[in-house]
């Protein structure tokens, strides 16, 4: 894939969950370039999560065109782990479709869990993990499939501030080391500005603003430039109420 070829392309995409209700997405167009980190922000019900459902094929666009050439995986809110499987087996779901032996899968999965600092929980069940640990297992499951495009659906929404900070650093490290294109949905504007190199503001099913964040990483929340972008994004989002 060349540097200029977008990993993902939305052209005039429209979508409605019911035939006779206003569309949740209206003429949405954007491209994701390889290795970029894009965060979509916007009020509840603005259509942010619908974008991920369309990319993953959970729903089909009724209008426009989506082109996705990348191997795409997703990190869900709360991890979405299977409670009847151990951590190791949950991670091995990421190997679906890859022709590896059980021993290879085992080795790869344990290696990824070690990188994420949760190798000691390999044989535990999800109910025995904290929210942050579950999310790390979700990340490991996505990473073992060697994704080219990683979708993150509000991955920090159920976590405390400290865990969110640690996990954000982890995701940033993975992004920079593996050059995976990332598209994250978030309610947290501060988090979006700390991570993204591009922020798409969504409102009423449309992209209302496309903000480029070219600040070097790691960023400091107290940095006046970071604060200025946070204020700008906050102003551009209509309140939920």
């Amino acid at each position: 894939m060349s540097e200029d070829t977008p990993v993902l392309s939305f052209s005039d995409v429209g979508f409605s969950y019911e035939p006779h209700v206003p569309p949740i997405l209206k003429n949405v167009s954007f491209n994701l370039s390889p290795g970029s980190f894009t965060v979509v922000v916007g009020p509840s019900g603005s259509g942010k999560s619908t974008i991920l459902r369309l990319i993953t094929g959970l729903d089909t666009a009724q209008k426009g065109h989506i082109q996705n050439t990348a191997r795409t995986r997703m990190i869900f809110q709360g991890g979405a782990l299977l409670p009847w499987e151990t951590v190791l087996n949950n991670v091995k779901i990421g190997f679906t479709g890859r022709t590896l032996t059980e021993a290879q899968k085992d080795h790869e999965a344990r290696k990824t869990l070690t990188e994420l600092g949760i190798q000691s929980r390999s044989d535990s069940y999800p109910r025995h993990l904290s929210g942050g640990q579950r999310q790390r297992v979700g990340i490991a499951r996505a990473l073992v499939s060697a994704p080219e495009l990683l979708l993150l659906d509000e991955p920090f929404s159920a976590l405390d501030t400290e865990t969110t900070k640690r996990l954000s650093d982890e995701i940033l490290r993975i992004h920079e080391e593996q050059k995976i294109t990332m598209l994250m949905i978030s309610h947290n504007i501060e988090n979006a500005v700390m991570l993204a190199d591009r922020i798409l503001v969504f409102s009423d099913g449309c992209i209302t603003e496309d903000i480029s964040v070219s600040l070097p990483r790691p960023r400091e929340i107290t940095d006046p430039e970071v604060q200025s972008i946070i204020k700008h994004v906050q102003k551009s989002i209509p309140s939920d109420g």
Partner: protein
Amino acid sequence: MKDVSPKMPYWSHRGRRRHSSTMAHRIGSGLILPLGLVVFAGFFATGVLFVPSEISGKVGTLIAALGASFLRLFIAYIFALVIGVALGLLAERGRRVESALLPIFDVLESLPVLAFFPVIIIIFLKANFLEGAAIFIIFFSMVWNIAFSVVGGVRQTPEDVKAVGVVFGMTRMERLRKVLLPSVFPAILTGSILAVADGWNIVIVAEALRAYAPQADTAHDLFGIGSILVHASSTGDSSMLVAAMTVLVIAIALLNIAVWQPLLAYAERFKFE
């Protein structure tokens, strides 16, 4: 980091370990109490304290009859399980399918199965296949419990968990086997317990076929604990009635202790928080 999470044995309910007092409690509530009630009721009905000596020679017959009834119930349950799970999963495939199928299920479930039992018997009588009539009627009383439980189970499965199979590229069969069926396992189990309970109710009448078909007589009754109960009741054989009821209660209690309780404990790990 060391894993300090408690290792739960499969039979334990949310970390409640098996110990003597739990087992004693289960045996006490599941076996001794119902049995005591039967003996107590039998004593008042017949003046006999326990299985009288003239019945003791027939214990083998009672156990064989119980085995025959259990086999009927088991065959009907297997059909109900396969068809009930399939119907439940089918109903949850989409809003249109759900809105078309659920009203039909509602009507079929509400039909009093005994109302059209005579018609079923006549049909099976013509084919000289009375076992089929009994199994069909037991199946029909069971299947809706399982189907509706599965519908509820699919609805309770988080959307994100259902999406995992699609996002990670599983085939339909893999999604069914690795995600959907395990996620509805607790619901299948609950439906099965209700179904088998309904089955025990129906097995009693399903074996006494002569009561429901004009052409049938006692020769058409099926050998089983149900027909023995009906026969003992109609001939006023109180001691046989108490003995048959005792055997039935012991069997149901043992099924509960040995099968349903361990499965319920095992199903805990399949539940979403």
